[in-house]
């Protein structure tokens, strides 16, 4: 999957519907993998998120922080077209992935989700065995030809998600028998089993103990070499520790309608956000003086 961006590919350019577009990388400059301009999200009449302009850079960890209800999950779910599944959700604006309009008419959302994996806010294992949970993605994507290949993928994914040692003896038992934290790591294993380019993680550590959290953070640090990661977190230390760039969102009440709309306040390298932010609201939030 990687290597498709090599210059040699330029000669046999593939159809636009192929998502292996070439990122607009300039010499010396970092390449961005996602490019959002004037992104607006509505749920029915509710204008949930307004005018987000945000570049996500390849092979980096970007953290989304902000108070509850500010639209972090909503924005995150735009990146893999997960909002398509909510009938009342509407996304407007520009959102490009490697230079391709993600919401273009020729884009297949199923293909998008194979490349851009997701770990959800609540652990959501399938009501199947541990093995089946991890094998499901590779199966539906037609990734493995035989059983032993699938076994390998399952083992590798569980190891990367720091869960293998705890479950290797009971791969055939139900995933519901795992603790909440184990279930979340299982969901991470499930997401990386299809070898995506990008990993979207919505508060992946909110149900984990400090040890498991540390493991997940180490895991993310390791994954960073191959994947682009966007993580939503309420844990300031975590965001400061692991993210390269941090985006701070907040909500403001619309004076006329009384509805709360989320917006991106500041986006910068993590150090700057946590030590010397430009915006006062960011400073109040990261120092715990919010609201």
């Amino acid at each position, binding site marked *: 999957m990687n290597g498709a961006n090599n210059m040699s590919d330029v000669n046999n350019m593939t159809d636009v519907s192929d998502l292996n577009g070439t990122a607009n990388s300039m010499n010396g400059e970092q390449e961005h993998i996602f490019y959002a301009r004037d992104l607006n999200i509505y749920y029915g009449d509710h204008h949930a998120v307004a005018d987000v302009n945000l570049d996500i850079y390849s092979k980096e960890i970007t953290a989304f922080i902000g108070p509850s209800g500010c639209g972090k999950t909503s924005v995150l779910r735009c990146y*893999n077209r*997960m909002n398509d*599944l909510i*009938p009342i959700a509407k996304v407007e604006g520009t959102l490009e992935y490697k230079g391709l309009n993600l919401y273009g008419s020729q884009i297949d959302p*199923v*293909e998008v*989700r*194979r490349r851009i*994996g*997701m770990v*959800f806010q*609540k652990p*959501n*294992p*399938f*009501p199947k065995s541990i093995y089946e949970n991890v094998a*499901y*993605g590779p199966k*539906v*994507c037609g990734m493995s030809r035989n059983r032993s290949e699938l076994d390998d993928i399952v083992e590798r994914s569980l190891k990367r998600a720091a869960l293998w040692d705890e479950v290797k003896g009971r791969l055939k038992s*139900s995933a*519901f028998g795992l603790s909440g934290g184990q279930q979340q790591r299982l*969901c991470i294993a*499930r*997401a990386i*089993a*299809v070898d995506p380019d990008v990993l979207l993680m919505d508060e992946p550590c909110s149900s984990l103990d400090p040890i498991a959290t540390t493991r997940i953070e180490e895991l993310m640090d390791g994954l960073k070499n191959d994947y682009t990661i966007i993580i939503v977190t309420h844990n300031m230390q975590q965001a400061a520790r692991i993210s390269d760039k941090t985006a701070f969102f907040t909500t403001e009440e619309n004076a006329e309608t009384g509805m709360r709309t989320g917006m991106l306040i500041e986006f910068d390298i993590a150090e700057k956000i946590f030590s010397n932010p430009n915006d006062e609201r960011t400073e109040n939030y990261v120092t715990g003086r919010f609201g």
Partner: protein
Amino acid sequence: MAIFGRLLDRRTKDHIQKSVTQALGTKRSGRSGILDTLLRYIIIALLFISLIILAVLIIDIAIDGFDVLSSRLGSFLSGTLRSRSVDEGIGIQQGLVGSFWIAVFVAVFAFPIGIAAAIYLEEYAPKNRLTKFIELNIRNLAGVPSVVYGLLGLFIFVKGFDVFLLRNFKSLVGGSSLAAAGLTLSILVLPIVIITAQEALKTIPSIIKEGAYGVGATKWQVIRGQVLPYAAPGILTGTLLSMSRAIGEAAPLILLGAVTGRLGLKAGLFDFYQLQERFTAMPIIITNWTQKQGRDIGFGENAAAAIVVLLFFVLLINATAILLRNYFEKKRA
């Protein structure tokens, strides 16, 4: 509480009291507590009354039918319709075969069409006014009296409406035939199958579906691999219960011209030619024999025996439904 008060000794009572106060912090205020208990006893009493009525009915019928079933079960099951109850050859074979085929028709037509319709309505249909309207009407159809379905079957299959396509139906099923009965009862239970399947399909938590979409599953893969397995226990129970409803229906079959007097045909269980022939079914035999017992008292106990046999099969189907549901639920957890 008052009833059980005397049955418990002091220490147990104190113990329970203590654990209750500990668990709840404070005791429930007196009035709502009494109301609660009262309501519970009323509900239990009502439940008992209906169970007792049911038990009395079943026992009464079992006693009435006991003679026939114990002395000549074999010939009763293999016998045919007769005009006099003393006739040696009297029995319910034709009714059993008829009801069997009705069940087969329901399984072959109503189940797949009903489940497919439910999947379409739940997963594919746009959530707009038209869909709502259709769903509402399916609910209404489920409440339409069964005689009306009998009329529908009568016009389509037996009379062959004066419309080209519907005339074809008549020649296809052969008028007042077993196939006509099977198809009519399939139509009758179709709304029930759709509704119960739809309810079952709704039970899957949306986060599980999202998890499947999240790793790149297509819509059909999500339905096939997640939604259907999750809904299977509910769908199975619903469909099998609708099957027992179908084999218990008499009214539509009377309109379709089920045979009550003497049916010359005596075909085996798997003789396909009988589908286009005249037919009878268990509920028809029961209705008819019960009516006849005024003139010929012997029909009464034959009817009772037939009821016991029908009940046996209905309970068998229901038990299968429950066992299958438990099996699939265990697999799910």
